């Protein structure tokens, strides 16, 4: 059955998602922060986590941005093949972002020309669209702060590289991020595809729930959940800690997505996200 959705409706929906994502911390992230607060013994780490949790409360209650860097908004669209849009979908999304950011009094952080720079505006959303089966339209807004985006990296491994080499790379990216990009981090990892697609996968991995598959013993060796768990353990041994002041919590989660790749290659991308991992979705 064909479903029709008006572009104007999409604009409204996207605007609302912007406000929600930027002002209401994701419940899985908040839960994990609270759990980390309980576990931390290091007094500075505990205080830093306390401030982070308090900040989320104030932001939600007073409709303030969780962080002034409301980021470069990344929009993920899953368009069901049986959905028909009345109007201009792309423009509707762009307008929704502008409207939402204006409504939320969020910062204009986007430079039109990356070389000439100039005054920042709201225009410049990145849209990742995918076509899926069915008659639903799913839209996700991920406001990506750039303090952490700046720490992200891509490495094109040889296809014969060992799992240990890949793990070392991921841990090294977190190590080199150090205290600068607002730890505790959520680490998105994209394995496979091509140079561009690995980067995309690493970012999309941030959308996965941050508690998925981290329990010990639940997943067989060599699988993604096992690798996520091992990496999280290794990363937390770095003791960078909240605000970089030491402690057990250097990362809240490691999320991996993989995809088929070429016999000659093994792209691995790491996308670093700060503790304020923000996103909101809706399914129409």
């Amino acid at each position, binding site marked *: 059955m064909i479903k029709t959705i008006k572009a104007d409706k999409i604009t409204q929906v996207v605007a609302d998602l912007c406000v929600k994502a930027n002002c209401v911390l994701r419940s899985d992230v908040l839960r994990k922060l609270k759990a980390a607060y309980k576990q931390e013994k290091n007094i500075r780490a505990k205080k830093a986590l306390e401030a982070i949790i308090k900040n989320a409360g104030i932001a939600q209650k007073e409709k303030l941005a969780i962080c002034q860097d409301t980021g470069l908004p990344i929009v993920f669209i899953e368009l069901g093949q049986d959905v028909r849009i009345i109007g201009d979908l792309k423009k509707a999304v762009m307008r929704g972002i502008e409207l939402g950011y204006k409504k939320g009094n969020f910062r204009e952080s986007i430079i039109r020309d990356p070389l000439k720079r100039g005054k920042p505006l709201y225009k410049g959303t990145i849209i990742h669209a995918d076509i899926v089966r069915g008659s639903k339209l799913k839209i996700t807004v991920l406001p990506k702060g750039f303090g952490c985006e700046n720490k992200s990296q891509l490495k094109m491994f040889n296809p014969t590289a060992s799992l240990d080499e890949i793990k070392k790379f991921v841990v090294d990216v977190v190590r080199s991020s150090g*205290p600068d990009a607002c730890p505790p981090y959520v680490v998105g990892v994209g394995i496979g595809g091509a140079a561009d697609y690995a980067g995309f996968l690493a970012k999309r991995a941030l959308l996965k729930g941050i508690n998925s598959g981290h329990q010990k013993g639940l997943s067989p060796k060599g699988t993604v959940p096992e690798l996520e768990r091992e990496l999280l353990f290794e990363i937390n041994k770095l003791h960078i800690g909240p*605000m*970089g002041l030491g402690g057990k919590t250097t990362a809240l989660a490691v999320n991996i997505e993989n995809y088929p790749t070429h016999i000659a290659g093994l792209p691995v991308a790491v996308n670093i996200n700060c503790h304020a991992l923000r996103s909101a979705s809706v399914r129409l």
Partner: protein
Amino acid sequence: MKKITTPLKEADILSLRMGDEVLLSGEIYTARDQAHKRLVEAVKGRKRLPIDLRSAIIYYCGPAKTPKGKIIGSCGPTTSRRMDIFTPLLLKKGLKGMIGKGTRSKEVRQAIRKYKAVYFLAPAGCGALISKYVKALKVIAYQDLGPESITRLKVKDFPLIVGIDAKGGSIYG
């Protein structure tokens, strides 16, 4: 917890050690990447600066827009590292304090020691919380830069941690 007020006095600066927790009250200036670039160009071109750097504190921050009925929007620190290439010259010109997040370069650490200044850490990623310590905001210069313009903030009991002290001691080792 030490209470400190602006303008920073030498005795206060020298009494601070890395790791100390401080409540800062008084006036500070926001400035980030593009404002730093302009300030340094102005110094090098022997032009008049829009702010008096002597004894001043710069907060690496580009606040969100101010919602109706509020003094300021979310206003947490940005990554200090990016300002490192500009900082030694500003310290030479009298800057005494910086507020940001994360590590600094060796050059900045040496300059902090040489010019007896201090680098503070603000609660990173806590812009909504920090907005509660801001009592006034005024745009001072480079308005064309939007959120990157220089503003003067009046803060009350802004909770900070000494990241690098005047002896060059750093909380990050």
